């Protein structure tokens, strides 16, 4: 028996593009469009949207700030992870494995209520004035720093040993070689992975609603709780996350294709 795909019909290329067409993307855009219409036309959805949407600012601010800090933590921990200094390496591994071994939700509580007080104490800040938003940012940064550390480590290790040797043989220090030779190449290689983790973090930022941070998730919960419009609240919330993540992943795909072509 031959399958239909084996027949060389004149319209096989048409069939092929039919099969390859990103129908999933159409389905998602149809959902987003229907939600958009509901939000505009239906007063209950419109109310939910008006209540929840302002939380976008908190969601984005939390995600972007925490991600920026996580990049620094991740780079440091990733470099520490491959350090030849035993103490440095083990501190980095401890941090990474500790974070990876505990659920994100639990870590958010632990960082916000157990780790932040001594840190603020050490910095001479009264723990009670540290806002939930700041705690949330620190928690997400500390958690994602460990994830990003592994990405940075893999990125650095993906650069051939000859690059470091060539740089060192020219008299550059380890730090100079890392900064000017290894990291620029590594970061380019891992930028898609970093982008994926940014999207993951955008979604995980919803967890900080447990700290009463007024992000879109928290506002959706408040709206649902006060109006009992659960369906409207959570569909609008779903719509908002999906719209953000789908736009970001499309941008990421486009960027990946571009750097892929550059290398070709």
């Amino acid at each position, binding site marked *: 028996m031959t399958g239909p795909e084996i027949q060389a019909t004149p319209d096989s290329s048409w069939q092929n593009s039919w099969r390859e067409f990103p129908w999933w993307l159409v389905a998602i855009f149809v959902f987003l469009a229907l939600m958009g219409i509901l939000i505009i036309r239906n007063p209950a959805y419109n109310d939910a949207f008006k209540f929840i949407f302002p939380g976008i600012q908190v969601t984005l601010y939390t995600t972007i700030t925490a991600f920026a800090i996580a990049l620094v933590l991740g780079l440091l921990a990733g470099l520490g992870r491959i350090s030849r200094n035993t103490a440095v390496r083990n501190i980095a591994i401890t941090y990474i494995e500790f974070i990876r071994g505990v659920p994100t939700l639990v870590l958010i509580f632990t960082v916000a209520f157990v780790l932040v007080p001594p840190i603020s104490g050490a910095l001479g800040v009264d723990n009670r004035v540290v806002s939930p938003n700041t705690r949330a940012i620190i928690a997400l940064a500390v958690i994602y720093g460990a994830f990003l550390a592994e990405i940075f480590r893999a990125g650095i290790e993906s650069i*051939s040993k*000859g*690059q470091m*040797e*060539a*740089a*060192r*043989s*020219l*008299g*550059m*220090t380890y730090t*100079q070689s890392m900064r*000017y*030779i290894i990291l*620029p*190449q590594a970061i*380019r290689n891992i930028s898609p992975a970093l982008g994926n983790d940014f999207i993951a973090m955008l979604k995980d930022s919803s967890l900080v609603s447990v700290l009463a941070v007024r992000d879109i998730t928290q506002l959706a919960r408040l709206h649902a709780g006060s109006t009992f419009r659960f369906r409207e609240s959570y569909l609008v919330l779903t719509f908002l996350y999906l719209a953000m993540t789908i736009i970001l992943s499309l941008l990421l795909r486009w960027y990946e294709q571009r750097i892929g072509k550059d290398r070709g």
Partner: protein
Amino acid sequence: MSDEIIIIDNLHKYFGSIEAVKAVNLQVKRGEVVVIVGPSGSGKSTVLRCINHLEVPTSGAVYIDGVHLEDKQTDINKVRAEVGMVFQQFNLFPHLTVLENVTIAQRKVRKRSKEEAEQIGMEQLRHVGIPEKASAYPRQLSGGQQQRVAIARALAMQPKIMLFDEPTSALDPEMIKEVLDVMLQLAEEGMTMVVVTHEMGFARAAARRVVFMDNGQVVEIDTPQVLFDRPQHGRTKLFLSKILKH
């Protein structure tokens, strides 16, 4: 200033339990060209890499221009700035243009201004015959061109010594000559060079002495004429008969 710019004194190197280099002694005079030959795995690269401390000897000492590399007080980066190295795999920096490849270390290590570094960099690109590729990226160059850029990159530091580790082994046959010509020219200009290569023609034309290594040891050191035509040791004869067959 001693006449010997490189002194390798009773060098031993272990990788785990493998003894890659055994009791190697070698001295190289200023302006001398020394070629190292020997079978694969005989420790040639390891000796070469000990000369700029890319490998740390298990025991023994290396002196470059009187500076003891294994001494904890030695600033190894300062020594490396004076010792250029060319690798089999070129190891150009793929994210930088050719001109950036030949200027980055000048700027970060020699602390030269952009203008000065670019002027010296262009000079060296002309030296190796490809100034027109200054703004290209390494991947746009042929293997021979890449290796010549790698030589220019090392020369732009204005080193006292140049080390070459099988610089033509990764090249297509038709590109070997352009690289050897640059190396010959360098030798004529009086550069101190230690070259691991199996290019007999280059050794005969440029080397004052040829070192034959086998099994981590220096078996024989002599002029190319003697070592290639009238080798004293059985192991040298055996090796030469093998590579001449190819």
